[in-house]
């Protein structure tokens, strides 16, 4: 099933473009210490190269401390994407576990999980995260990923719960029960693989939701702290020089938007590919 979905994705031009963009971004993030032309915190000439426009030596210009913007974006990808991917993995795991628990155990556990999801869905996630960080102080990137992941599992849990309850009605689950399989064996061997495609889509969407959150947090000074570069705090540094240094705004915006757009397109095409798998054969 997975290979058929993959085949459909490869035949889809939009999906191919999205995968290539995301793949390049991840590769650049992983390789950034070796491919970045400068140290992202290196200040070669704080007077002469202050806010220098893009040139051959600094293709994306320099910031107010004469640091190379290209290097900061490349190394910033590491932190921004690292936090985002960490948060995505955590929210996918938490959402699957809690959604499965609600669907399989039922009763008051189901009620509790559903109530928690309903309540948290009514709270703006950005506001919740800003409130937590503003109250308890700035976080290290690892804690940032945990916080963003810990607030991002709601939709995954909802989807997993609904899909598992739907699957539980089908004959093959009844057959497994008739054969004497335990509740947890059915969950592990049948229900979890059945929801895996939906969880994948939800995880890609969660990535698309976390990238702007991290950028926003760093932009208001509550996320990744200086001098570490992240896509958000490069923008924060640039926001004071809007009239003089457009390159401090345009390039981070392009990178952030491109990543989110690629993730959104991939999630959309993945959903179509999976649906085709189910109905079209």
């Amino acid at each position, binding site marked *: 099933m997975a290979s058929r979905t993959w085949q459909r994705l490869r035949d889809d031009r939009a999906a191919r473009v999205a995968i290539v963009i995301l793949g390049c971004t991840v590769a650049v993030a992983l390789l950034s210490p070796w491919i970045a032309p400068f140290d992202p915190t290196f200040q070669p000439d704080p007077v002469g190269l202050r806010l220098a426009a893009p040139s051959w030596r600094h293709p994306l210009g320099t910031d107010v401390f004469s640091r190379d913007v290209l290097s900061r974006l490349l190394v910033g990808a590491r932190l921004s994407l690292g936090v985002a991917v960490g948060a995505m993995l955590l929210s996918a795991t938490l959402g699957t576990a809690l959604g499965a628990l609600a669907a399989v155990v039922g009763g008051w556990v189901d009620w509790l999980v559903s109530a928690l999801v309903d309540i948290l869905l009514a709270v703006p996630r950005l506001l919740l995260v800003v409130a937590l960080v*503003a109250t308890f102080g700035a976080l290290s990137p690892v804690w940032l990923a945990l916080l963003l992941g810990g607030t991002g599992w709601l939709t995954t849990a909802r989807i997993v719960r609904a899909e598992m309850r739907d699957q539980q009605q089908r004959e093959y689950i009844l057959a497994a029960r008739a054969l004497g399989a335990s509740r947890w064996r059915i969950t592990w061997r049948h229900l979890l693989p059945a929801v895996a495609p939906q969880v994948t889509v939800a995880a890609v969407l969660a990535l698309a939701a976390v990238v702007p959150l991290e950028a926003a947090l760093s932009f208001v000074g509550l996320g990744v702290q200086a001098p570490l570069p992240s896509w958000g705090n490069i923008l924060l540094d640039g926001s004071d020089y*809007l009239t003089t240094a457009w390159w401090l705004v345009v390039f981070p915006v392009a990178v952030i938007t491109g990543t989110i757009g690629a993730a959104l397109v991939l999630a959309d095409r993945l959903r179509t590919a999976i649906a085709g798998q189910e109905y079209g054969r």
Partner: protein
Amino acid sequence: MKRLVVARLLQAAAVIAVVVTSVFVLLQFAPGDPFAASLEGTDIPPGVRAEWRARYGFDLPPGERFVRWIGALAHGQLGYAASQRRTVASVLADALPRTLLLVGVALILGFTFGVLAGLLQVRHHRRWPDRLLGALTLGGVAMPEFLLGLLAMTWLGARWRLFPVAGLASEGDVNAWPLWERALDHLWHLALPAGVLALSVAARVARHQRAALLGVMQEDYIRTARAKGVGAWDVLRRHALPNAMAPVIALLGLAMPSLVGGAVLIEKIFGWPGMGLTLFDALLARDYPLILAATLLSTVVVVAARALADLLAAAFDPRGLRAT
């Protein structure tokens, strides 16, 4: 329908109660209090600090403070906002209308343009208007509001000076201007923040409207209407659109929290002193009474808007009622 309304209201009340209680409990674990910034680290004697805290009830155990806060709330008393040196009620009375104006204008504009774009895309399905609008709306969904805000501010505001970049009104003797000029000035300041939010809403609405319309256009009754000689536009507008509205309205309800979250950043960037900016500053100043009241009010607005969207969606499409 009546049962749905009652159930929705009860659920909304429960959500508000839980959110406010959680905020209160969370604040107990937070370091500092409203007086930390003004009292700690100064040479004010400890006795005076204790007296100030006692005057505003910060020496009481958390449980008693919560009961007192609820009691005062029941009497319409929201307390004193130490960081702004005036009552919480007056701070919120200033901030709430500004946010409602910003989000309201953005919602109305965004919804209208989103629905129009969706209609246009389906009317010219797979031709250039559809592809162009599809690319634009994908960009609108992919670009976070605050980035669009920064770009708009850089070019439309700071470089070409078409719009003011911050604040509610022009500087100077604005109050001496005639009323209509002041109103225009206010709208001119509203244009960038509301326009940015509206574009973001429009992109989301358009994508969902297009998908919903394409789904409805497959139905038999549409083919019947076409066969009877109804024009392409009339079929879309009069027959397909009403049935494709419900999912879009439901989406708006679900998107309410993230719209408010996006509005917080827009308010911060454009210096629009609404609820978001107030709450943001209150959090940094540890102004507990203001944080609690602002959270309560925002949650009420968000939950009410979501409930309203649910009911509207149900009114547009009563088929879903039987399922719930």
